[in-house]
């Protein structure tokens, strides 16, 4: 039995490197101001799909939604053995929150009638972990979140998932969607031959119309949440006291903490 997998990936600003003003006045992100990277847990999702193809055959399709610059991560996916890539890009999709994003992606995923859909657990720009489960709901599939491993048994997926308080093993009917964490394992390195083959590859693009999206469910129009206010994090001073790394100063500190009952 071979499986057709769709992997949803996202190019994200490297939020570990945020400096200065990264937000526009309307509260959306000024992505141009930051280095763009392959969202870390989406690389784990890609590895999950590629490992299924390696073990059982089939094909892997990678989809991203974003600006044309997001082609870069689709090429990264091709370098690792993905069969087809698509860029969903459309001005109508601008301003989409997770509900609108999951709608548009579900319409794109649907075209390929996959057995398996893989997403990273969450993207580092929003950290919401909502898009995966919401795509599953729209496609009428079960969502298996926090996937750690996948195998198959009698036509069902045999999965292990992290439930926070332990590890759960499930048998899941297909088609199904999986959100993948870094525990699944690192993405394989690029294959040099595939790099040579695809380094100038221009991915196919899909508009909202191409995938038959209802415009009222895309972008700002399809997004129930609005950003009311954005504040930069300012590290507050707290009556800072400098303590010398010497025994008498340390003793005085411990006495102070004991006197105010911070420690017993």
């Amino acid at each position: 039995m071979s499986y057709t997998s769709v992997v949803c990936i996202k190019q994200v600003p490297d939020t570990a490197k945020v400096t200065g003003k990264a937000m526009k006045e309307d509260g959306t992100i000024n992505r141009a101001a930051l280095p763009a990277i392959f969202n870390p847990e989406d690389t784990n999702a890609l590895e999950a799909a590629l490992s299924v193809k390696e073990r059982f055959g089939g094909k892997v399709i990678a989809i991203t939604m974003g600006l044309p610059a997001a082609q870069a991560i689709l090429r990264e996916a091709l370098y690792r053995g993905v069969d087809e890539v698509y860029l969903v890009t459309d001005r109508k999709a601008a301003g989409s929150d997770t509900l609108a994003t999951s709608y548009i992606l579900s319409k794109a995923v649907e075209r390929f009638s996959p057995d398996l859909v893989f997403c990273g657990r969450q993207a580092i720009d929003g950290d919401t972990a909502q898009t995966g489960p919401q795509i599953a709901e729209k496609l009428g599939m079960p969502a298996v979140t926090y996937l750690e491993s996948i195998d198959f048994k009698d036509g069902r997926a045999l999965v292990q998932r992290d439930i926070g308080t332990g590890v759960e093993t499930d048998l899941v009917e297909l088609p199904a969607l999986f959100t993948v964490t870094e525990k699944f394992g690192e993405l394989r390195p690029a294959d040099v031959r595939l790099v040579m083959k695809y380094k100038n590859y221009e991915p196919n693009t899909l508009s909202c119309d191409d995938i038959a999206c209802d415009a009222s469910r895309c972008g700002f129009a399809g997004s129930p949440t609005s950003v009311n206010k954005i504040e930069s994090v300012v590290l507050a001073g707290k009556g800072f006291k400098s303590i010398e790394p010497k025994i008498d100063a340390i003793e005085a500190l411990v006495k102070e903490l004991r006197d105010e009952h911070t420690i017993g």
Partner: protein
Amino acid sequence: MNTRSGEVWVYAEQEEGVQSDIAFELLGKGRELADKLGTKLAAVLVGSNVQGLAQALINSGADIVHIVDDPKLVNYIGLPYRRVLTSLIKKISPQIFLFGATHMGRDLAPAVASELRCGLTADCTDLQIGDYTDKKTGENFTNILHQIRPAFGGNIIATIVNPRNWPQMATVREGVMKALERTERSGEVINHAAELDDFQIPVEIVSILRKHSSVNLKGARVIVCGGAGVGSKENFQLLHDLADALGGAVGGSRAAVDLGYCEHERQIGQTGVTVRPALMISCGISGAVQHLAGMQDSQKIIAINTDKDAPIFKVAHYGIVGDLKVVIPMLIKTLKAK
């Protein structure tokens, strides 16, 4: 003028009949929101044989406990739980529904919001009632839920609103909201049928292996936390020794976990646990915003670092610029000399 009515709901997560702490934390915040709105606070309890959990929810602030109790709901599975909640929402129309940003809450809430096509804000660290004006249409909304969360790797704090869709949904980080002191209160328990007889569940749980964690960071009064600057796993033992001397717990930054100095379950920060102990001793932590997001509300922070310019000193109450291999033994010696 757009105003709302309806109950404030919190999802009272339970596993194996044990109520999660987050349920009580959500009730603490939910009580404040419901009082502000002049409406009732309800806990929503889903599972099998969970009736016995209701009184503790009432004693922790709930006016009403909506229970859906059915053998098919014995273990959490996304699809039937979602179905139960969406029918309950359609039946009762709460104005606000809060979930914990736990593994379960982050699995369940997005699916519920997706089916109802309503907004959901993830991982809130504060919630307030306020007004909102849509700048495009000029429409005013009063008494709506302001959902406050860090975004963009903790570099910004965003206030999100969902002014038009019902209910207003949010997940809330664990350890951020304070549970109320429990008092004997009376409340209403309402049972609802699960209506799952014809429902085929496409997921079969084969086994659940619970890890019984010996690490309890959220409950610790004192935490000694180490980062990359600790330098080695051997040096990290010093932190354990200091924590033992203080009767505290040991945590680590993401860097310390990645370097193998401590276990993943000890991670404090945006992708780990949020803590606010009475005393936090940060050792060899530079203070990336992702880490600070999980500890900056500690009541007292002592930072030990060789780099006097490390950002951790900006949130610390006491700063010791020095080598932790020298400073920690001094602290242990002083504590033991009592």
